[in-house]
């Protein structure tokens, strides 16, 4: 635990990317193979199943600290992180543990199968053996939320440095379905082959947003355009007679979308397609809300299969005939994909994402204005001669989104943030007028600068009318312009609407609360 805690401490006490990579590379150069593998697993989001609920942890920690549970609950929002709250509230300890990370992970895995009383005893005794930073790390391992400012990409870079292997190659090896129990450091990193895992996806290519003039990216003839869909980005993999669907978040989603399995009847083996999974009916995409109903469920009731069927809208081909073709130019990959899909019958669950033809940027800009009517979020621009690259590479793929919808709303509740923003009020509930009444319609917590959050925090403290735990009702006085990507009817919300990606665009210092928008204004945006 000490070596891994030291690694955590080094990463956590610096803001420099280079220093983080160097600390990780040192760890990869010195730790045992088992510990390296666990470190890779944790930093790529492969966490063991939660061994204990957070409610139990809170109770046990309060008991061990000799304080009532309510006092721990009061301290939690101030600290902003439950693992840290527990680590700090337990009686101070000067013990340190020297066992390796892998031993602790084995311990965490064992806890899941124990009777509750024994689990409690084991956790209490573990807390007693650790100093406070070790406790924090241990609690993070227990609760399965290991996010410490290191992206998978940084970890991959460090691993490349430590092993002298190519970064893109490692990124590919880390994809897919593996756990430290099913592989070894050697099989995963040093000596893998594509046959190891038929379900392994490729690292996704990502796009930058266009900020200035679109013409700055070059002549229109270099670029291919298609609609940017509001679905779930995924890769469909057909290998060895099987089909797998991976999300961009590296989640295996095959079972959530049983209707896509039919692709096996229509498409050849040895292919990998990149595309968007959309709820889709009668030739048009359905609102994201319908897809949302599908995401949370592992098994899908047949009523939902009927009301919100999905398709894979494909826009790129990464593997063909068992060959990795990512090095070929986009135009060539896309031509191959077109040929493969265009003649499929209408009941095939894979369709082509249509390309948008245009001769100059002005024409494309006019087409972009029609995005919302087509249920698209804007356009994607891909360089015709570009290979398929891992991650976000400047100048290759651009997203050119339409301007968001906006509404001026009054802040009515405030709640403090978490982690870096504990002690600041950053989560707000907004309302619009319905007659003389303010109707809450959305929450938003991003879009402002730290300086603005500081200012609002002081204002909230001075204008609190009522407290409900961490939430404060404030004087309805401040007006913010709220931006969002879409709006749909919703029976679950008091306002009758649900927003997509709401955020604060700016603080309208110039507007009194009386001049904020009304519920009628808001509903009019549904078109």
């Amino acid at each position, binding site marked *: 635990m000490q070596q891994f805690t030291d690694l955590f401490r080094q990463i956590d006490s610096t803001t420099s990317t280079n220093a983080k990579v160097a600390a990780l590379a040192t760890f990869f150069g010195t730790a045992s193979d088992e510990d390296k593998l666990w470190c890779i697993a944790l930093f790529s989001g492969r966490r063991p199943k939660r061994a204990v609920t957070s409610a139990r942890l809170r109770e046990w920690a309060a008991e061990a600290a000799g304080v009532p549970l309510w006092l721990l609950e009061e301290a939690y929002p101030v600290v*902003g*992180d439950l693992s840290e709250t527990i680590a*700090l509230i337990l009686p101070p300890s000067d013990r340190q543990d020297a066992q390796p990370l892998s031993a602790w992970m084995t311990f965490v895995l064992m806890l899941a199968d124990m009777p509750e009383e024994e689990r409690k005893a084991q956790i209490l005794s573990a807390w007693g053996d650790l100093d406070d930073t070790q406790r924090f790390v241990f609690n993070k391992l227990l609760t399965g939320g290991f996010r410490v400012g290191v992206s998978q990409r940084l970890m991959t870079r460090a691993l490349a440095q430590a092993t002298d292997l190519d970064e893109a190659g490692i990124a590919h090896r880390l994809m897919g379905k593996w756990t430290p129990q099913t592989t070894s450091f050697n099989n995963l990193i040093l000596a893998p082959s594509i046959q190891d895992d038929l379900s392994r996806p490729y690292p996704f290519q990502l796009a930058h947003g266009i900020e200035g003039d679109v013409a700055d990216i070059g002549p229109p003839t270099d670029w291919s355009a298609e609609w940017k869909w509001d679905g779930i980005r995924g890769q469909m993999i057909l290998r060895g007679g099987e089909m797998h669907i991976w999300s961009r978040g590296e989640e295996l989603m095959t079972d959530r979308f049983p209707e896509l399995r039919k692709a096996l009847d229509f498409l050849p083996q040895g292919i990998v397609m990149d595309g968007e999974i959309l709820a889709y009916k009668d030739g048009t995409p359905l609102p994201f809300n319908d897809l949302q109903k599908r995401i949370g469920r592992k098994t899908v009731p047949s009523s939902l299969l009927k009301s919100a069927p999905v398709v894979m809208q494909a826009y790129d081909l990464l593997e063909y005939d068992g060959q990795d073709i990512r090095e070929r130019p986009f135009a060539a990959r896309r031509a191959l994909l077109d040929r493969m899909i265009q003649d499929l019958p209408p009941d095939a669950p894979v369709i082509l994402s249509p390309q948008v033809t245009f001769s100059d940027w002005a024409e494309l800009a006019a087409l972009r204005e029609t995005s919302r009517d087509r249920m698209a979020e804007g356009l994607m621009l891909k360089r015709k001669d570009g290979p398929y690259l891992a991650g976000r590479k400047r100048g290759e793929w651009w997203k050119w989104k339409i301007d968001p919808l906006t509404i001026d709303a009054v802040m009515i509740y405030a709640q403090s943030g978490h*982690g870096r923003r504990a002690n600041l009020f950053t989560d707000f509930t907004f309302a619009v007028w319905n007659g003389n009444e303010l109707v809450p319609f959305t929450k938003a917590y991003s879009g402002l600068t730290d300086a603005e959050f500081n200012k609002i*925090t002081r204002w909230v403290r001075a204008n609190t009318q009522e407290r409900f735990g961490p939430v404060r009702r404030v004087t309805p006085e401040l007006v913010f312009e709220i931006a969002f990507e879409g709006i749909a009817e919703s029976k679950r919300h008091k306002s009758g609407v649900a927003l997509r990606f709401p955020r604060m665009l700016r603080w309208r210092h110039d507007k009194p609360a009386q001049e904020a928008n009304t519920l009628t204004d808001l509903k009019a945006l549904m078109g």
Partner: protein
Amino acid sequence: MSRSSVLTFTNKGIYCPAGDFYLDPWRPVDRAVISHAHSDHARFGHRHYLATPQSAPVMRHRLGDIALDTLPYGETCQIGYAKVSLHPAGHVPGSAQIRVEVDGEVWVFSGDYKPEPDGFCEAFEPQRCHAFISECTFGLPVFNWQPQQMVMDEINSWWAANRDEGRFSLLAAYSFGKAQRLLAQVDPSIGPILTHGAVEATNAALRQIGYHLPNTVQVTADLDPNAYKGALVIAPPSAIGAAWAKRFKPAQTAMASGWMRLRGIRRRRSMDRGFALSDHADWQGLNDSIRATGAERIFVTHGYTEVFSRWLTEQGYDASIVATEYSDDSLEQAEVAE
């Protein structure tokens, strides 16, 4: 005089009717007894001040030519019908708890306090009393300080590592109190120590009355930083991150404050490091100190008052909240946006 009102709480500050004086008032008054020289406790505009002799030079430096009488620790003076004495609070040099006795009823106002001796300022001495007015800046059970030596070891090794890499170590600390505590405890054999003018002015005031501090060099416009490579630079948080600090390159920055115990706050500041070193009582310290007074009535102020008074009530005390206008200087410092 009713036994329950040795001190009352007014909109100008804590007031003693029997002696017609105020304790750390925030509005101008005729007669003020001052717990310590921090600016939220020792304010401008009173006609007459009373404080410890150790507080006097810093108060004069900050408030100018004031009418100030001093009362040594442990000695009693009579003001009207009240007996007043000052007792070490362990917060900063010269800091005192103010003990007021009227007709045998004893009330103590803690000011800001820290029970852990820091080897520099006068160590906290608990006072038996009937009612105790306690700060609770860190009145949550997640605030438990590590021993001072442990934090100082971290600071020393951070400084030494920076020196080895040819970097300056810029350490942000409140210019009165925290800065001198650090100066007194760091290992001066690691390298030279430079100070900001605000810190050095306080150093001079304290050295003059016998506090021992290591040698320091004040940063002035004509100082050549390159002659002090690897130095430790102690300055107020506002100077670090401002143009003033730009002359020290390359450098690592750090902040020493009790709030640095929290990872969220540590990371929100754009400092490279945060050292959890506080001049206030931690959770254990608050509870132990309150118990040591033997008081049944506890008034809490300055911090997590709602939570802390509820906790004390559950522990069997007659606890209530007092609203004061002492700005939580340490919190403000942690929250200021860079």
